[in-house]
């Protein structure tokens, strides 16, 4: 393939903010510069909340940037552009159309004549390994086959740039591996009409196995913190020591603290209006127990932990962050270490665990402590959720405020710090006795 030295895609100073409930702006992408060269696979790697999906949608022309510009082949992107196609995490297939019709529908949008449309659709179906399934409907297919339809639908429009939004994360581990391998084979054979690929993922192994470059996104607001160039030839063996070393180092960089500073002023640590993500207390307790077990004796490799979570992979970083915040674990060079407090939690009985968790929650999650203190000062020891929601919405979007409240309610219930009535939407201290 003859490479064009000009980048296919170029982003300059892209900012994106959404209005908060309070009317102020919430910054989700901060000054993103990005170039994708001809013949390159670039992975955007970040935790939830890093704005990676928003960035992908800006590039796809589905969302306008607040400021800054996106140029595709030198032209400013002002909407979904010719030559950019997207593969969705949820496949986004039309259940009432057959495989063939699902692939053709993108060409219908281009107004192609029928014969041409059919010819190209069959070519794409052939290429992606869907022959024989032309007349099947999506609901008859397995997840892997559905995502193949997603790929066929994207390449049939002959895009220059293919966008993948967590394209493999709704699949089980083996199917995802199979699809990735086949895609890379096609890519290597030069039979795809695509020039470059930009993929969003939270899966570090996936990014390391596929990308020519990995862009690490930092959170709150999203910005590109680091670029990692991978010179290893594809296909990359995941058991190759060089690949494993790279995976370890990406884990280390993603969990390193503090992250490179941003111009943006984050809420001071200890503020009640932080965006908290729901992390199940079972998951926390389970990880602490495993870490304390003989297999790890208090220290484990993060890729190993990630493989234990497999389909819940996107919960890895919130989980690690929460354990760190509560003082149960520390992260160090891609490893997780149990702290003395973490040992204490793992080795206690359920009642003691609750007491321990309650103590740590009050110490380290200011919102939980705030709710409790408000309840303590009220004569009837009740407070409606709106009272706290409004406080949160001064700083967060309505959706993030809901996430945060849901997370705190669950932790508070587990810790028996307070009770919550979802019908009345009221916090209280009265537990049914």
């Amino acid at each position, binding site marked *: 393939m003859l490479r064009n030295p000009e980048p296919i895609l170029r982003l300059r100073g892209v900012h994106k903010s959404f209005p908060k409930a309070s009317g102020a702006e919430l910054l989700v992408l901060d000054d993103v510069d990005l170039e994708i060269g001809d013949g390159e696979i670039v992975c955007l790697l970040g935790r939830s909340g890093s704005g990676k999906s928003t960035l992908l949608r800006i590039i796809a022309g589905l969302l306008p940037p607040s400021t800054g510009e996106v140029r595709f082949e030198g032209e400013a992107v002002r*909407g979904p552009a*010719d030559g950019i196609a997207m593969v969705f995490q949820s496949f986004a297939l039309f259940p009432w159309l057959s495989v063939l019709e699902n692939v053709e*529908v993108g060409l219908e*949008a*281009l107004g192609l004549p029928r014969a041409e449309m*059919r010819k190209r659709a069959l070519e794409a179906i052939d290429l992606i390994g869907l022959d024989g399934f032309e007349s099947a409907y999506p609901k008859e297919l397995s997840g892997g086959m559905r995502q193949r339809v997603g790929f066929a639908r994207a390449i049939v429009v002959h895009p220059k740039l293919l966008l993948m939004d967590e394209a493999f994360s709704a699949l089980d581990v083996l199917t995802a591996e199979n699809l990735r391998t086949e895609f890379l084979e096609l890519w290597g054979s030069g039979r795809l009409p695509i020039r470059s690929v930009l993929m969003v993922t939270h899966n570090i192994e996936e990014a390391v196995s596929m990308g020519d470059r990995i862009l690490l996104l930092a959170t709150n607001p999203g910005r590109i913190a680091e670029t990692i160039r991978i010179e290893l030839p594809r296909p990359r063996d995941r058991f190759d020591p060089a690949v494993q070393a790279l995976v370890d180092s990406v884990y280390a960089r993603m969990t390193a603290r503090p992250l490179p500073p941003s111009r943006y002023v984050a809420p001071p640590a200890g503020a009640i209006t932080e965006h908290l993500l729901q992390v199940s207390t079972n998951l926390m307790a389970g990880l602490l127990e495993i870490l304390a077990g003989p297999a790890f004796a208090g220290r484990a490799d993060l890729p190993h932990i990630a493989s234990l979570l497999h389909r819940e992979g996107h919960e890895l970083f919130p989980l690690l962050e929460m354990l760190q915040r509560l003082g149960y674990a520390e992260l160090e060079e891609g490893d997780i270490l149990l702290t003395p407090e973490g040992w204490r939690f793992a080795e206690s009985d359920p009642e003691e665990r609750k007491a321990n968790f309650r103590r740590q929650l009050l110490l380290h999650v200011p919102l939980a402590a705030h709710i409790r203190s408000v309840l303590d000062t009220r004569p009837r020891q009740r407070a409606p959720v709106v009272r706290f929601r409004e406080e949160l919405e001064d700083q967060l979007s309505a959706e993030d405020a809901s996430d945060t409240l849901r997370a705190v309610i669950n932790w508070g219930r587990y810790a028996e710090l307070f009770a919550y009535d979802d019908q009345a939407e009221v916090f209280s201290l009265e537990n049914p006795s």
Partner: protein
Amino acid sequence: MSDPRPSPAALGGRARTLPNRWDWIALPLVLGAVLAIVHGAREMGGSLESVVETPISLSPAMLPDYALQTTLRMFAAMAASLVFTFVYGTLAAKSRRLEKLLIPILDILQSVPVLGYLSFSVIFFLRLFPGSAVGAELAAIFAIFTSQAWNMAFSFYQSLRTIPPDLQEATRAFRFTRWLRFWRLEAPFATPALVWNMMMSMSGGWFFVVASEAITVGGRSVLLPGIGSYVATAIFQRDLAAIGYAIACMVIVIGLYDQLLFRPLVAWSAKFRFEELMAATQPRSWLLLLFQRARATHFLVAPLRLLRHPFLILGAPAPHAHAAPSMRRERLKDIVWYALIGAGLTAAIWSIFSYVRTGIGWSDLAETLLLGLFTSARVFSLILLASLVWVPIGVQIGLRSRLAEKVQPLIQFLAAFPANLLFPFAVLGIVHFDLQPGIWLSPLMILGTQWYILFNVIAGTMAFPADLQHASANLGIRGWLWWKRVMLPGIFPYYVTGAITASGGSWNASIVAEVASWGDTTLVSRGLGAYIQEFTDAGDYPRIVLGIVVMAAYVTACNRLLWRPLYAFAERRLRIS
């Protein structure tokens, strides 16, 4: 690249166009339907004089012809309702400003009693087509339309609002035109709910088609040829045998409608259900299967198929640009828009008020309010009574899935059967046993609508998760505790849906059900429905308007104060997902 393989559609070659054994049934069905439509339509275009002068014959030989015309009215109204639905639902879902206006209007339209429209539409359409039967036909069709269109438009609007965001993004990323998006995403996504609502509308429509063919407004009566007029004539002439024929004919018509339309449509629409997995049971229809297998019939509609592609790509490729709305201009447009709505609203209220004020006073308002109280008391006690009867029976049927499969088609049939055909028997009974009409006419209101309660309760019981049933059996939960803790909460969301439908239908039916006659015997039970009916016959328009407004107010109040909170509660707390 140089491999132009035969497309799957072309693989069969010529063999696909030759008739097979399925065609021997499919082709006559298609041709017969076309002929019937042409025949019926020709008869509907005559002059008003000929309609008025040709008396309705009570000979059973005339019934097929009358039934055909009644059915055609029904389908004409359905076609109009579909067009209305697509336009109104799309506008409401797509424009934030229009939504604020169109949805409340729809809410009001829905609560106005269907037959209330009739007294006005008759005059309007008769004046529009003076001397032609078309005016009277359109008035009847419009009345049926008003019984069908609103819930269909609502369902379409709601479907459009709940399209999964990833599919919407996919259509934008692949640069669908609005036109392509409508036919490839929006209409298909809305289809299952829309088909379901069409069927509900049709079932309700049979009731109103019968009621709207024999129109008496201000002393002037028009009898459009059809089953409704046949029954009205039979009642007037006290011909019990003719009533029997009409009922038998209606049974056949509804049976055909069920087999030839309802079932195929529902089975077909299952394809559009938005679900990840194959459902365990797929609705089936022999007719749909027949047409899917008949080759030559496919060949007949092939030209239509060829048109599909050019139709879909009209206007492609799509324009693509971010709309960059200026916040200040948008806000200004908002202000102008709401000011316009406000002005329109004031004008509308004022014109109704000043119209109604001519010749009637506060005492009339007080009277209608009191009568409304009577009618709502009837509606509620009947819903309660029907619930007490049908909930236990429905649960017992639903628990036996083999039985339920047999019973459900029967209930759908009963719901579609126009209950007003049975009114004469009720009148005879009341007169014969010298009963109190104020009480004994009431059951007529719920005669046709109680089936919705039964139907939904059965559906709810069948949808109740088997493992919850096993768990409660395992825990030894029985008797009243089982009803209170297991089954009643489990079916409640379904029950509420059924009860809402039954309540709305009963209000509508009250206009016909509170006044029933047999020859010159007329039984009246005091209520708002009888009030509207009485002044419609007398042509007293201010009082008709007053009656309709008060009834719409009662219906809206019921919905807001009782049904919606119940529904919201059921959805939030008791829906098993």
